[in-house]
């Protein structure tokens, strides 16, 4: 550890001479503690992991002629049922944004060494994280148990030609209903089996609906699941650190609650990843 005087000398050194002197020892060239620096590099590696998943998604999506239409797939609302495209996931996004904001507030109160303020804002952040996980549980439940999507079955298809249904499915599609190329449809299950509908294309050929691109389910559950697992781990670590804060563990350190700041970096990263998950799964 450098003494007070040598630290001051080094600062003079830096000001008097060339820019590179930060790296000649005695001062912290990144102006950040080891822990904070390593959190950044962990997040960098995690960014590559998520990028790998999302690029795999893009690659598979580019390799097939049609892809499930987001505003058709994601249209369930709690208590109200179907017919509300993207509303629920917008709410989820808001929950995550709010919890990011409360996290910044916790970090700011930490800088002021305000213990109670840190605990208060961290508690709100934890509530936000838990609320997001609850929303995700609802969304997964709707997809798995009501729409019968699985890792290998994707019931969300898209018509490639225009035509007329030759049979109904008892879920709103009747004999004689017309559809256009690009119209999305959901293949329903009857007695545990997917029930495909026969149709007559405008060209005169008779065809039948099929399942959507096989990779969709696995990509959706793995990517949103991996993100959700990050949120879950975040909630656990937030709880632990909040209890440490409340117990006064960080008061003695007099470093402006740096542990809370590192936790904040992780939590914002989870929000950052959601920006891209939201973009590719729900918007595009």
């Amino acid at each position: 550890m450098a003494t007070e005087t040598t630290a001051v000398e080094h600062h003079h050194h830096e000001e008097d001479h060339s820019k590179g002197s930060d790296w000649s020892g005695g001062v912290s060239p990144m102006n950040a503690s080891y822990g904070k620096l390593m959190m950044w590099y962990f997040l960098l590696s995690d960014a590559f992991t998520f990028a790998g998943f999302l690029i795999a998604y893009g690659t598979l999506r580019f390799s097939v002629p049609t892809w499930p239409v987001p505003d058709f797939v994601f249209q369930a609302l709690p208590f109200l049922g179907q017919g509300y495209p993207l509303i629920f996931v917008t709410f989820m996004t808001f929950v995550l944004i709010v919890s990011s904001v409360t996290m910044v507030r916790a970090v700011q109160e930490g800088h002021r060494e305000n213990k109670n303020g840190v605990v208060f804002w961290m508690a709100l952040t934890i509530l936000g994280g838990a609320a997001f996980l609850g929303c995700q549980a609802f969304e997964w439940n709707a997809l798995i148990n009501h729409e019968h999507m699985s890792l290998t079955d994707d019931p969300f298809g898209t018509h490639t030609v225009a035509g007329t249904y030759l049979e109904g499915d008892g879920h709103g599609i009747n004999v004689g209903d017309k559809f256009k190329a690009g119209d999305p449809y959901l293949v329903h299950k009857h007695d545990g089996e997917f029930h495909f509908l026969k149709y007559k294309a405008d060209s005169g050929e008779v065809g039948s609906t099929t399942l959507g691109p096989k990779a969709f389910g696995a990509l959706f559950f793995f990517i949103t699941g991996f993100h959700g697992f990050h949120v879950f781990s975040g909630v656990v670590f937030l709880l632990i650190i909040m209890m440490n804060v409340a117990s006064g563990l960080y008061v003695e350190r007099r470093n402006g609650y740096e542990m809370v700041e590192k936790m904040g970096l992780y939590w914002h990263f989870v929000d950052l990843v959601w920006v891209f998950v939201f973009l590719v799964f729900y918007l595009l």
Partner: protein
Amino acid sequence: MAAGLTYEESKKVVWRGFWLLGAITIVEVAIALVGNGHVIDGFRLPIYVMYPLMIGLSAYKAYFIVKEFMHMGHEVRDLAMSVLLPLLLLVWAIIAFLWEGAVWGERRTLIKEKDAIETGKKTGSILQAPEDIPTMITFTK
């Protein structure tokens, strides 16, 4: 605390960030709903208008989160560069893999067309006339 800002000023930055991110998200969803014909009957936006807007707005959200919420805008340059420069590799990865995915799709279509010729089966709109079919891949039985 953020470079030179007072406590009150930094609090303002946070709440400004909240409204900014919230507003951008609403605009994104509005573009999706209007663009896909959910709001005005019969009105749709072409994807070459929707997609760049959505991607641009999301990129701005990401930039804002990293710069303000994660404080990267206030870290020393060497730290910021050591984290941000490696991400440039993703520019290559995105272009290369999306390109590859598109080629898989083309190949699959080609093989299906060739199969249709071999078995003498006409498969919908894909197959028009045999002379339209590229002959890059030859099949041996």
